[in-house]
């Protein structure tokens, strides 16, 4: 399973240095260095989320920058009722959806490189064993197929799959970020997985 994002308290415990709330308070008082520390802390997770939704690294890079700029400009309005990461994830999801709407296109795939460690991943090894040497799947083929399958989903279904199955965010947290009920999240997840199973049936047992 992918690493869990967890609550802000968990993240504060994982990250060395001051908690998010303190950095946010400092950034709200004009401390740009504090905000840069927040960027350093969250950029990978936001990038993974945005890239998961777009399957396009250039778009993901652009959106990542926009998200932090947008967050900085609206930081004064952040009252701390939700955790910083819930707030910035919400900005990221909304901005990504709007970005794609504006572009009005099914983004062409522009994929990140795969790490060599994938070949040792038990899931990949199982897949190779299941398919047999004749149909041995290459990493790049699987990579492309996975991303293409994700792009067949609607924005709201893809968002939930990326957040839960890739980023490991719990249903309740996703519900808070997307401002819907946990039941809606579960039902979207169920539906999206069924569609993905159809798309990826060649790789299924």
């Amino acid at each position, binding site marked *: 399973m992918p690493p869990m994002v967890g609550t802000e308290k968990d993240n504060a415990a994982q990250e060395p240095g001051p908690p998010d709330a303190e950095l946010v308070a400092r950034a709200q008082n004009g401390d740009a260095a504090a905000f840069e520390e927040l*960027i350093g802390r969250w950029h990978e997770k936001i990038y993974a989320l945005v890239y998961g939704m777009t399957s396009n690294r250039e778009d993901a890079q652009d959106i990542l*920058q926009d998200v932090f700029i947008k967050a900085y400009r609206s930081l004064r309005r952040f009252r701390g009722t939700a955790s910083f990461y819930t707030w910035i994830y919400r900005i990221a999801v909304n901005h990504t959806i709007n970005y794609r709407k504006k572009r009005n296109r099914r983004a062409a795939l522009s994929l990140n490189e795969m790490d060599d460690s994938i070949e040792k991943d038990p899931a990949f090894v199982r897949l190779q064993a299941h398919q047999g040497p004749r149909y041995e799947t290459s990493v790049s083929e699987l990579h492309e197929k996975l991303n293409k399958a994700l792009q067949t989903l609607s924005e709201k279904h893809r968002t939930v799959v990326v957040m839960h199955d890739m980023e490991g965010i719990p249903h309740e947290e996703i519900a808070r970020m997307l401002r819907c009920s946990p039941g809606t999240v579960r039902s979207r997840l*169920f539906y999206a997985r069924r569609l993905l199973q159809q798309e990826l049936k060649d790789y299924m047992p």
Partner: protein
Amino acid sequence: MKCSRFRKETLDAEQLTPECLAHAQECPDCLALFEQGLALRSLLALRKHERIPGDSLDCACRAFRLAAAESFEPAASGLALVLRYGLAGAFMMLLVINFSISPELPAMHPPEPQVRSVAAAPSPSFPGPFLAHSNAEPSGIQYGPLPSSLVNFNY
């Protein structure tokens, strides 16, 4: 256990609880769904092996610094605005003060019309009619053919 409950309970499950296992043994559809879900999740999890571009942090920080620098510009233009409105206000104040301390000026009225009687009015003197020179012939000028005179051909 109903299928709907099984599906709800195993949506994110890695392993089946005894109750779910009992249902799965009775319902092959639910078991197949569970196994496929498990396989799909492990397949999707492979995306975690994608490398995040090394320059993503630098790019984000650079863009942020630019934006932060721009966000200071409104402060500078805010100062310019304060100066502009301050000057305008000071000008208005000066005008008000100028009017409040200046001596009272006589009221401005339109000049009263002068009434003159017709009798007192001087009678207009008109010059005599101007006659242009008449077409009378000036003396000494003769019009028409000259009178004939004798010519001495013997000369």
